[in-house]
């Protein structure tokens, strides 16, 4: 990437910042300190600026994540439809709690706020896919489909 001193580019240049961070996450699975420094240099921003944006958004991670990321919705409509049971099933199936990654690096498990699938509650996202009307019985089938 091109190197630029902080402040060397126009204010509009940082418009591409969030997209670049997301691309890095997609490519490497997380945003390392080196990646942040590289992005900062190319957009003529301080590393602090890039860090500030990266840590603001819940879908961005500064720690390595598993190959697949499970995000169980903890919104009120899902909670009313027993999301708690789904959280327990995932915990049992994977042997990890929210915010953790399996030892084999296959899954990371997180709780997330409303994913807009309240009509299919309880619901979760695995990577970019929605799984709705969840029951504890369905969990192992779903997990099996992600290698």
């Amino acid at each position: 990437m091109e190197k630029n001193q902080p402040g060397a580019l126009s204010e509009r240049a940082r418009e591409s910042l969030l997209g670049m961070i997301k691309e890095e996450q997609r490519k490497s699975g997380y945003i390392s300190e080196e990646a942040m420094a590289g992005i900062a240099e190319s957009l003529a921003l301080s590393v602090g600026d890039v860090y500030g944006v990266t840590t603001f958004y819940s879908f961005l991670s500064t720690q390595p994540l598993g190959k697949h990321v499970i995000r169980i919705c903890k919104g009120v409509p899902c909670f009313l439809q027993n999301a708690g049971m789904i959280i327990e099933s995932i915990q049992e199936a994977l042997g990890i709690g929210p915010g953790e990654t399996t030892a084999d690096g296959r899954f990371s498990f997180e709780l997330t706020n409303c994913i807009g699938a309240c009509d299919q509650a309880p619901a979760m996202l695995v990577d970019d896919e929605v799984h709705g009307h969840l029951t504890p019985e369905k969990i192992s089938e779903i997990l099996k489909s992600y290698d």
Partner: protein
Amino acid sequence: MPEKRILLKNCGKIDPGDIQSYEGQGGFKALEKALGMSPDAVIAEVKASGLRGRGGAGFPCGAKWELARNAQGGEKFLICNADEGEVGTFKDRYILQHDPFSLLEGMAIAGYAIGSKKGYIYLRAEYHYLLKGFTKAISQCREKGYLDDLDLEIREGAGAYICGEESALMNSIEGKRGEARFRPPFPPTSGLFESPTIINNVETLVNVPHIIQNGSEWYRAMGTKESNGTKLFCVSGDVERPGIYEMELGCDLKELVKDLAGAKEIKMVQVGGSTGRIIPGDMLSTPLAYETILGSGAVMVFNESRDVVDFVYRTMEFLNEESCGKCTPCREGTEVMVEVLGRLVNGEGVEEDIPVLEELGQVMKLSALCGLGQTAPVPVLDTLKYFRKDYENRISQSVFLRGLKTVNG
């Protein structure tokens, strides 16, 4: 009042992957008609229709467009807010999935009316699975020449509830932290990159082709004095048939949740999302309109078995987590509310907790920077009004538990 499918008329009928099926239902006729009118005439029609913002705030759409049209400054921007993060809301997702062309036709008309050549669609990260289909819809519109005058770009969020708030959304597009901005200036005069900007919700824009095609008089005939047209309601929670129901504004909440969605033994309903008003079960005969209660269109139903304080605590935890942290009343206010409600939930409540919640709630309403902080205390204050006994019981339980501890040493 039965369902009235106007905004949803194409959903399930057209193939969202084929523009010809939309054209076959009369699609893009409204754009053609709009292009034959002057931009001022388009704005006048939307103004006369009484259309108000469907994202929750309810600002008159035509008046907003007029401000942007008349604003000085070079480039003007049009932003479609598809960051549907409000808890219990999924109507925009449904439109994007089943009828993306209606939204794009609405955007083309809006761009023409305000004089914008550049438009953004801000899509929440949680809806990434909609990106492919929606991108295809945009390219089909481009090929057909419907977007010749409006360069559209999709920007994806990265997981932040606050980015549905318009000033935070603009910061996010600019590559900044999604923090709310001080206002004024308001977006129609100085918004994205300090240029005049119009930000409309998906549902608001989908109304536009119908207004242009059928006229403002037809539109005004639906709804109440201050709330015209239909509204998409997202019903969830303790109901037999959760889903989206399109109803004329002013319709009865009781009919929606009981007759249509099949709710039974209702303790309360929250209307408008996580910071929406609470309606207790014995007050369900309430019209849904801007004059009364509306918000984003989220309708969450709680049956008699639900615990009020538990629900309010969960909601406050969510708001605390999603507060952008820029202003003190919201950042610290939600923090303290989580602490106090947490005490009640864990059986450690004290007598002073209720007056503390009430006083703090008033302060947040008056002094927070944006809608999130200003409305964060609403579920607390509303439940204190209607379900005070539940809070008092929690405190007496706490007192009792402490007494036991003392006795047992």
